[in-house]
């Protein structure tokens, strides 16, 4: 209601005029039985009530109108603005001043409230912004520092570096550049998601091919990990967005590799829902289920629900990250009407489960065409 009044000021003037007129007319009926001072209080109450809901100017108008009405209709002699005695004149002036103070004070109070509200929103935006800047500048500056540092060492004039050391420094530069690229990629993807620019291009995808393709691109990042595959041999083709699926699996495997110790296992499985005989039915909507799990430390149980939140980083996380990777995964999964859940494994580690209810096409149906 508050907003409705604020938006339309001409309406507010109308409301103040009408309410003063109606109240005055009603009071006119009981003018002879009730003391005019009481009527003064009633009008004052009206102005105070209006002050709560209306802007300052309509309230001032109501204050002036009700003072005039009090004088004209209720202070003797009636139907004239003339006042006979000093007492009544004093009463009228007091009435007007109290009405004014009421209007001004209420307005001031409301403004203060609004200012506090704006300040609070700004503070929370600022906090989010600072979290983002903090993690971003850390995530971007660390690789840049590694690159510059390595180059400086390589360029040092009076130092003889063994070829082994030089190789190591070159490797550092390479790793840091790849990390930078990954972060920039994530930022771009996040802005794509935020702007609603994602329109999945659904086409028949060989999920098995996507998984192997992504993992071979990640061979450098996962060289200290064991990746095992459990992919259904008869996995049908699914109607998904190839590029989005690549990014989803890339981020999840990358995440597992970053947050598990050396030598940890990562298992990727892909299967389909078999509760209906899909060999007989072609083009049926079926479930594609992909799980990516590791045997690392898993997620802190009290924070597991927040894993996909933007910029969320876990308290004890040592390896950093912008907190963007997993929220992008969720966004991309949902853009394809899929769902993602995260659980801690029965013994240890994290288990990501992706489910897509999409059209599928059994491979056997096409082989001999």
């Amino acid at each position, binding site marked *: 209601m508050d907003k409705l009044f604020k938006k339309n000021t001409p309406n507010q003037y109308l409301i103040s005029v009408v309410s003063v007129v109606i109240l005055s007319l009603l009071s006119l009926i009981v003018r002879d039985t009730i003391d005019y001072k009481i009527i003064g209080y009633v009008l004052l109450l009206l102005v105070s009530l209006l002050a709560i809901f209306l802007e300052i100017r309509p309230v001032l108008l109501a204050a002036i109108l009700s003072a005039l009405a009090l004088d004209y209709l209720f202070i003797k002699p009636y139907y004239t603005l003339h006042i006979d005695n000093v007492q009544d004149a004093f009463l009228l002036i007091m009435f007007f001043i109290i009405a004014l103070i009421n209007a001004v004070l209420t307005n001031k109070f409301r403004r203060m409230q609004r200012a506090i509200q704006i300040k609070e929103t700004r503070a929370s935006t600022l906090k989010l912004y600072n979290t983002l800047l903090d993690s971003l500048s850390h995530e971007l500056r660390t690789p840049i520092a590694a690159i510059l540092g390595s180059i400086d060492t390589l360029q040092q004039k009076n130092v003889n570096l063994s070829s082994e050391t030089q190789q190591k420094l070159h490797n550092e530069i390479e790793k840091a550049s790849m990390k930078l*690229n990954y972060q920039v990629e994530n930022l771009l993807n996040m802005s794509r998601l935020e702007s609603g620019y994602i329109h999945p291009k659904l*086409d*028949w995808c060989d999920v*098995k091919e996507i998984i192997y393709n992504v993992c071979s691109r990640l061979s450098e990042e996962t060289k200290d990990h064991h990746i095992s595959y459990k992919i259904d041999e008869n996995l049908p*083709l699914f109607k998904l967005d*190839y*590029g989005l699926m*690549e990014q989803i699996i890339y981020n999840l495997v990358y995440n597992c590799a970053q947050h598990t110790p050396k030598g940890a296992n990562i298992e990727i499985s892909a299967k389909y829902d078999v509760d209906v005989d899909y060999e007989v039915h072609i083009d049926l909507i079926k479930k594609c289920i992909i799980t990516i799990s590791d045997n690392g430390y898993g997620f802190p149980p009290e924070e597991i629900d927040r894993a996909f939140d933007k910029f969320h980083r876990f308290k004890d996380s040592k390896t950093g990250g912008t907190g963007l990777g997993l929220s992008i995964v969720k966004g991309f999964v949902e853009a394809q009407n899929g769902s993602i859940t995260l659980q801690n494994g029965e013994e240890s580690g994290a288990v990501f489960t992706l489910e897509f209810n999409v059209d599928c096409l059994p*491979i056997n149906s096409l082989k001999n065409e």
Partner: protein
Amino acid sequence: MNNGFSILVIDDEIQIRKLLEISLEANEYKVYFAVNGKEGITAAASHQPDLILLDLGLPDEDGQDVLVKLREWYHNPIIILTVKSAEEEIVKALDNGANDYLTKPFRTQELLARIRTALRSKSSVTNESILTFGNISVDLVSRIVKVNNEIIKFTATEYNLLTLLIKNDGRVLTHQYILKEIWGQSYSEQTQYLRVFVAQLRKKIEDDPNRPKFIITESGVGYRFNTS
């Protein structure tokens, strides 16, 4: 020092030009530069390079238009450089006659390999009837394919797909192009056939079908036969 090949780089980014100048000249290519589309077309006409590296994001005109104009008379390989996540741009460029593409940031080793492949397919218009690469040999006359010296049976479609890929060695073929060539115009959107047949071909010719060395997936774009 020169290996006999010249390359024209059309790119407005000075850093990329510097990098390409160093790495291409180190590999003994003669390099020409142009900073926009107009200059690029003039330079292509006056130098007649063996290969052109064309950046799609040029300051003066759309890289696709430059590509179309070049292709009216220029028949040597053109490799496109582009920023990431622009699959539609890439497909369009390939349809407009580009031989290959690389997304920025690209690795120099990858770029050099692509250049070598493109130049090789340019110079070797062979009339040989038997093509050999690695452990695979294809006899185009008798239509016999041998893997590790063993004859492998292929269906007609599989064989056609394999030879289409081989004849375009190193070149990225879009999904639509392959579907039209092998299955016909009305199949140009039926990517499911391609997915299945590529998987089958890989099972027959690749040592590890899950980590293919010959038939490379270009995600969202198409496939490329790789012999380098």
